[in-house]
């Protein structure tokens, strides 16, 4: 069933270097080559839609879906502005975005589309869509990452998108834009000397890549809290990409995994990974947290006063 709606999934880094300065470091070049390979695979696939979940587009009011049919502007990254500007012109699938909102609401989530001239699409989404779908061959939508959302909300969000894909008879390439370890160097570096920030980050990244390579997406989803504690700078409440990716693509380990590149991006771990729905199963983790179908919101713990 997954194969009916999901062509394959990609996990790609949010930093602009593979787009703006692939020649500055051999590793950036290898990430760029991996992006190029994925672009070809998308072109050769039967996908009719690209869905991007970007960790660099935070939201507060629920979950936002980009729905401007022609989303156009020139973006500049907050940190890496000296690498150059990022002009973009993306074709968004407004109808699908609206369907996602309806499905999200029917599962208890707050959601809305955004369709505004000059809306600031984030660095990660621009990098991914510019390299993976440069001619707008396929329409896309981008999903925000709610800064307060945790596991259940994120999983329900993924399931809502599956609902929309199933109902619409669509076939998508799912793109998660996220670093692995996300600790960057806090000083300027010579790009030619870029490396993963610490041995610990590198060790964890390589362990995660083993899981991806084995197609163990649900196992990674189960490990998200551990990943967040070990190699994520605590900017947000949780490491959510694997939750969203598993819920959207299918919560199991039946994937063919391929790590196309793994390199440092100003110290963070950047990888281009493909997961394709397959038969057979690999993995040894058992699901240890409840699955969730419907988001019920806050439990109003703070309003319940003293414990009885």
């Amino acid at each position, binding site marked *: 069933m997954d194969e009916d709606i999901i062509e394959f999934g990609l996990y790609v880094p949010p930093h602009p270097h593979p787009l703006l300065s692939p020649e500055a470091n051999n590793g950036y070049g290898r990430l760029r080559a991996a992006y190029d390979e994925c672009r070809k695979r998308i072109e050769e696939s039967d996908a009719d839609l690209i869905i991007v979940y970007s960790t660099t587009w*935070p939201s507060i*009011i629920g979950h936002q879906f980009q729905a401007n049919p022609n989303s156009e502007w020139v973006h*500049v990254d907050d*940190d890496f502005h000296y690498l150059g500007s990022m002009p973009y012109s993306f074709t968004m699938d407004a109808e699908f975005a609206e369907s996602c909102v309806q499905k999200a609401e029917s599962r208890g989530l*707050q959601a809305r589309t955004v369709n*505004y001239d000059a809306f600031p699409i*984030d660095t990660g989404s621009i990098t991914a869509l510019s390299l993976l779908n440069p001619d707008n061959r396929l329409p896309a939508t981008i999903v925000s990452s709610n800064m307060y959302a945790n596991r259940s909300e994120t999983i329900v969000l993924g399931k809502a998108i599956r609902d929309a894909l199933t109902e619409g008879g669509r076939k998508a390439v799912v793109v998660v834009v996220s670093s692995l370890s996300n600790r960057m160097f806090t000083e300027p570096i010579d790009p030619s000397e870029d490396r993963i920030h610490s041995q610990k980050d590198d060790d964890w990244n390589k362990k995660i890549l083993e899981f991806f390579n084995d197609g163990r997406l649900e196992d990674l989803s189960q490990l998200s809290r551990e990943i967040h504690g070990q190699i994520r700078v605590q900017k947000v409440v949780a490491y959510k990409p694997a939750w969203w990716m598993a819920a959207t693509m299918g919560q199991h380990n039946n994937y063919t995994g391929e790590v196309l590149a793994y390199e440092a991006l100003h110290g963070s771990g950047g990888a281009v990974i493909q997961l394709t729905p397959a038969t057979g199963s690999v993995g040894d983790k058992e699901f240890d947290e409840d699955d969730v179908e419907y988001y019920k919101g806050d439990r109003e713990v*703070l309003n319940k006063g003293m414990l009885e």
Partner: protein
Amino acid sequence: MPKGEIVLGALAPHPPHVVYAENPPQNEPISEGGWETLRWGYNRLARKLETLDYDAIVVFTPHWQTYVGTHFLGLPRFSSKSVDPIFPNIFRYNYDLQVDVELSEAMCEKAAEAGLITRMMRNPDFRVDYGTITSCHMLNPKWDKPVITISSNRNTHYYSPEVMIEQALALGKACREAIEESGKRVVLVSSHSLSHRHFVTESPLPEDMSREHIYNHSQYVWDMALIKLFREGKMKEAIDIMPEYTEQTIAETEGGGIIWMMGAMDMPDYPAEIYGYQSVIGTGNCIAAWVPEPDAREIVL
């Protein structure tokens, strides 16, 4: 050349809702008002600023987030449209602002001499963050003064609140030295809320004030404790409790704005002028000003 000075430092929260509620011609969405306690406080402070003689506004904003050092605007003019990625339904603002590049470069240089990582931002396509725009619009709707925006380095997340405080104070001191050497009279703006837990839903009419209140009572109590210290002129004590305050209220002070400003103003020991406190989508927002010249100081609220 006379020694430059800071004529006023303002805590100026930037929820885009207040600009939306003002209905200025630069902002596309139209509202029926809302958040009057904050807006009237802002209006009052803007009138006071009109009576002061100053050359530039320096803004520290948590919505230009940099991880590789502290960055400064470095071109004489920025003109574009700012659309809030969080609240695009209420903030789509066409701006055209001038930058005091000379002073910006001087502050950047002084901060580098103090051992901080710095960089000038000279990409003409860069969009100025909505925090800068909101605070500046509310304080100076005529936009007739040059602006300098300083990014917020994310030390709190990368290291600890204590490291952030140390660096923000050092940055403030460096900015003060640059201002004094410039001979200019400057207004500082620390652009942020206090407690910063948002509601994750929005009423159909965002300005429906029957729905607006602080996220929870704990946030309110903490905000009031901090504002009490503002009123009493106990800014060293305020900075001392900042790590715990920030942790307890998820406060936007984590970016370092008010700490930078207190460092630049040499830790004021006189009462702040309080212009208002109100929640916006659950967050706590206080408008306050510190005025070094005693004769220009007032009791506002």
